[in-house]
């Protein structure tokens, strides 16, 4: 019997319970290859595409544009062209008869973030995937995802689970960010890097693949310079630390913005598609910015790292001479740190510039970024 594959509403992040179908990117009867984007859906936080995990023909579009489905609900069916319609109808009927949406109770939420004490400060992290020792078979080395300035572990919403398929992957809130301690000390890259190595000690990670976005890339480079034995590889996404330029108006505006009206236009600078900056995204950012200590933390970091629209520390030499695998990924239309910083980095550093992408490309071009990292780590 030929396989019939269901396309279902994905779960992006802990709070997502339902999603809206924004539109189909493939027509009924289209032939689909693995990795192709089939349908665009939107949670209250962000929009993204569901891509094919198998090849086949799009045989059913069970949900229409504008429909709101619970997580796990049926979007459509992919099957080979020779599967009979009756079989597909039976599979749809079977799915509908057996599907019960999650209740939204805590038990359904899966792994949730934890907190750990590092050098007297609380750091929040989310761990997905299991390591080799737990699974009793060979899996990849652990990975740590490090967000950028003003970000948090949710910046990896679309990457975390995909990267954790064959390894344990930790996403971290840096000091001053998310739900971690808001004490950033002097606000240097060294202080942030020390928090990362301290975190590795605390959770018992000898060495890891570091994936850093923006300021998190500069932090990763700093860890690699200070403690190279603890870093297996570096993936630097729209990374700071590879040149002097940075959008000072964005940094200063972000630090100063206190309300929705000021913040929203700034956040749209991060994305190639401004429609991704949803009400919820702005609201979540405001909730973060209102926390006691965040204003001071951001001012300290911005002053130390990005004063007057210049990056204080350039670590291109570290990247070039690291001697272990380095992957640099950039969005060609990045309006925060120019993609030009990817130029001139030569082998063994691998460089991938994605056309028509902005600064938050790990969210906006998640599938592509996940694939690049997967291939990079083999």
């Amino acid at each position: 019997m030929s396989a019939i594959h269901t396309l279902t509403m994905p779960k992006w992040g802990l709070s997502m319970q339902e999603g809206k179908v924004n539109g189909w990117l493939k027509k009924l009867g289209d032939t689909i290859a693995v990795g192709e984007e089939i349908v665009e859906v939107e949670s209250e936080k962000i929009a993204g595409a569901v891509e094919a995990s198998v090849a086949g023909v799009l045989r059913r579009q069970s949900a229409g544009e504008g429909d709101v489905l619970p997580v796990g609900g049926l979007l459509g069916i992919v099957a080979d062209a020779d599967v009979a319609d009756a079989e597909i109808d039976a599979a749809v009927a079977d799915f509908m008869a057996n599907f019960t949406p999650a209740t939204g109770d805590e038990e359904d939420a899966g792994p949730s973030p934890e907190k750990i004490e590092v050098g007297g400060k609380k750091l929040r992290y989310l761990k997905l995937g299991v390591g080799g020792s737990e699974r009793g078979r060979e899996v990849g080395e652990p990975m740590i995802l490090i967000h950028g300035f003003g970000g948090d572990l949710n910046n990896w919403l679309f990457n975390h689970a995909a990267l954790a398929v064959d390894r344990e992957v930790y996403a971290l809130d840096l000091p001053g960010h998310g739900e971690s301690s808001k004490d950033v000390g002097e606000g240097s890259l060294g202080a942030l890097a020390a928090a990362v190595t301290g975190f590795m000690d605390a959770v018992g990670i000898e060495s890891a693949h570091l994936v850093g976005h923006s300021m998190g890339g500069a932090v990763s480079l700093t860890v690699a310079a200070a403690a190279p034995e603890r870093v297996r590889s570096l993936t630097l996404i729209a990374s700071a630390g590879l040149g002097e330029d940075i959008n000072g108006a964005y940094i200063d505006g972000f630090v100063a913005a206190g309300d929705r009206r000021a913040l929203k236009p700034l956040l749209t600078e991060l994305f190639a598609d401004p429609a991704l900056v949803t009400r919820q995204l702005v609201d979540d950012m405001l909730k973060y910015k209102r926390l006691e200590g965040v204003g001071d933390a951001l001012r300290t970091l911005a002053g130390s790292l990005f004063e007057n629209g210049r990056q204080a520390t350039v670590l291109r030499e570290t990247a070039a001479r690291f001697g272990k695998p380095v992957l640099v990924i950039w969005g060609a239309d990045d309006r925060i740190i120019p993609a030009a910083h990817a130029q001139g980095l030569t082998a063994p550093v691998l460089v991938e510039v994605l056309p028509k992408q902005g600064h938050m490309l790990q969210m906006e071009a998640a599938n592509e970024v996940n694939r690049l990292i997967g291939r990079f780590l083999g």
Partner: protein
Amino acid sequence: MARKITYQQAINEALDQEMARDASVIIMGEDNAGGAGAPGEEDAWGGVLGVTKGLFHKYPGRVLDTPISESGYVGAAVGAACNGLRPVAELMFVDFIGVCFDQIYNQAAKFRYMFGGKAQTPVVIRAMYGAGFRAAAQHSQCLYNMFTHIPGLKVVVPSNPYDAKGLLIQSIRDNDPVIFLEHKVLYTMEGDVPEESYTVPFGEANVVREGDDVTIVAFGRMVNQALLAAAALQKQGIHCEVIDPRTTSPLDEDTILESVEKTGRLVVVDESTPRCSMASDIAGLVAQKAFGALKAPIEPVTAPHVPVPFSDALEDLYVPSPAAVEAAVIRVKEYR
């Protein structure tokens, strides 16, 4: 932000964190400590519904039980505020405002203006308001509009646990008199609330839901009625924008006007009686400043112009329901 607590717990946590941070913050009110502070009965009550429970022992000497005299202790709180403390006075029910109104509207609200800007009065008056508790005409009113009318007062009506905590911390830190109104039906509402301290600024509306068809402005508990209506209307293909002003004074006019400029249709949901209400205030604002954008008459959804009834059946009819909001939205949507 995975932690969920209730509206009531959020208020307690705000008081707790501010009392820990600032020794000048004190609490005054009837049965805040319990049993008039008599030995063995201390912290027995924590207010009518236990909102301040646990603070009496944690902050010795700073949670004060007062005699049953609002005119006395509200006046004392205003005086203490003028002299360097940050009192949070609890009025069990806002309906009791009548006996201490002079202390608030004619004293506290005026000092900054009458003393050439040299005086400040950082007092917070917390009070329960609203119908739905079978508490009849004298314990159920929705009077935020009365305070909103008076220059010199700031008026806060949180609709959810997150806002309750952040707005109360802002209220305590504010240097002007603040009326902080807690809807008793919301006390059990749960929501995500950060453990850390934070402030939600005054005069910044929350766009709780975005939509292009009809703007719904709602206050306090009514925000949740509006959201229920908006969810039902979505299924009928009508997309509502729901705005929670959070504070009636100062009022975020821009967010309301921008939304109406986009939708051209406005419903205002207000639990107060209709005359001289927030519903009429918002309608007046929009009629004056966004007249050209309006495609339909503005629809207020309010309580009727009668005291809150004691009969369960009548009280349920009295409070604006999601169904009433839904009907009003459909009327303005279908108006030609």
